[in-house]
């Protein structure tokens, strides 16, 4: 009896675990942690699935890994935010130009990165109207001087946010890999988390350290954190989210639908309203050709 029962259970379990819905009803999207941590996909997934009768599967990775999955064809589309990596992806022939848009990279929302840190602000970056580059220089200099008191936590995971952080260090006049990643880490003030945005924020909060974050994730996490926004202005902090259809993906039609969906007027309005009821602030701004380019 036990044998028969076990066999039946085994067969049932195998069937239910292995049988997946036909691939044409699945759209697989690799997306950055910042979008997921901000709660965007929780919000849009149901609407998209209902509108297109599809199972939208979100795989949350840093921009680097997300684009790697896109190159292999393991996902049908990527939604990311690192212009330099995106350009390389498109140049490598891994993207398909979206119908109705004149580029393979389709921007559909933006917000700003912010520098957050402990309210005490030991490096004093919120005083004197500093630019982001000046703030980073001060964190580096003061950090070298007293690495116990002043720390900066980096994503360190090749994500879009990490890419932006590197761009700021470069713009501030540093050689990122030697001055920051090597010397800073040796001195102890520069910490690479190697984690998603939410985890990095939690870590920075625990260490009373500075970090660079997209605004959406920070607002979503602010309730659990003591960190505050210290600096949020400067052109370099612009953060544009882009959707790209992957050439090797298995469901290009549905990927096209996603791009169209993200730029549809009603969805744009939803994106613009996201966060307002909960945080009193917008998490994202809808697409604006003047800003997103």
């Amino acid at each position, binding site marked *: 009896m*036990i044998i028969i029962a*076990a066999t039946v*259970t*085994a067969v049932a*379990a*195998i069937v*239910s*675990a*292995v049988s*997946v819905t036909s*691939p044409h009803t699945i759209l*697989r999207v690799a997306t950055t942690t910042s979008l997921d*941590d901000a709660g965007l*996909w929780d919000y849009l*997934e149901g609407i998209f699935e209902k509108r297109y009768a599809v*199972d939208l*599967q*979100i*795989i*949350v990775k840093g921009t680097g890994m997300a684009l790697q*999955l896109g*190159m*292999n*064809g*393991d996902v049908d589309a990527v939604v990311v935010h690192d212009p330099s990596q995106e350009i390389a992806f498109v140049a490598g022939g891994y993207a398909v130009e979206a119908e109705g848009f004149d580029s393979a990279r389709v921007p559909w929302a933006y917000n700003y990165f912010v520098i957050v840190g402990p309210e005490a602000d030991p490096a004093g970056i919120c005083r004197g109207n500093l630019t982001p580059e000046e703030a980073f220089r001060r964190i580096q200099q003061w950090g070298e001087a007293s690495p116990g008191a002043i720390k900066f936590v980096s994503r360190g995971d090749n994500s879009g946010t990490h890419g932006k952080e590197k761009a700021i260090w470069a713009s501030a006049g540093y050689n990122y890999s030697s001055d920051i990643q090597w010397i800073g880490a040796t001195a102890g003030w520069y910490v690479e988390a190697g*984690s*998603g945005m*939410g*985890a990095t*924020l*939690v870590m920075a*909060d625990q260490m009373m350290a500075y970090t660079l974050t997209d605004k959406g994730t920070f607002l979503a*996490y602010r309730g*659990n*954190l003591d960190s505050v926004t210290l600096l949020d202005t400067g052109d370099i902090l612009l953060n544009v989210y882009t959707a790209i259809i992957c050439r*090797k993906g*298995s469901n290009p039609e549905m990927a096209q639908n996603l791009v169209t969906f993200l730029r549809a007027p009603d969805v744009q309005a939803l994106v613009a309203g996201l966060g307002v009821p909960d945080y009193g602030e917008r998490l994202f701004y809808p697409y604006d050709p003047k800003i997103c380019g």
Partner: protein
Amino acid sequence: MTEIWDGLTRAVQLIISFDPEVLEIAGRSLRISGTACLLASLICLPLGSLIHFRHFRGKRVLINIIQTLFSVPAVVIGLLLLVVFSRAGPLGELGILFTPAAMVVGQMILIIPLLLGLTISALSGVSKETADTAISLGASEFQTIWLVLREAKYAVLAAVIMGFGRAISEVGCALMVGGNIKGATRIITTAIALEAGKGELELAIALGAILLFLALIINIVLNRLQER
């Protein structure tokens, strides 16, 4: 420290309120690890028996290799399978990356050495005379293996329970090949990693408690079965 207490309270709340998302995640954990464990058992019990009963060159070496593989990290298997199952990889045609099937395969590979090794040692606990007696009474090789497995049922069941435990508690492989997709491949351990990353420590602890609770129930059920 309050997080732990709050987490346990939350766990009880989630269990008694039949929270649909928690139920779904827990059910998926059970299905995937249960399937992996069953399939691995179907492979390992006969195969382990053959290794035990047959005499061949390199048997000792093989058993040493199997025992060494007990400690292969789940994340290494995940990484290998990510490459293998990727559309750009050798088995990309299957299209099972980021599906429960890939997770089942990963967990199977993870626990096969453990189940093989423990099956072999379980059978070593049965006297040689038992197998000889069965053969003398006219049992074929398969019938002998089946009888000896039954003689060693306590140790064999312990092996299966350990295999299941390793499968349901691993996170590295599930995260790599499953992708932690909400509603598709999110299981208890990957959810814990996600929630802990978000700073939702209470929920993470609650999920951890639920995992242990499930393991307890399964142990009780299996022990009941073996007492029959």
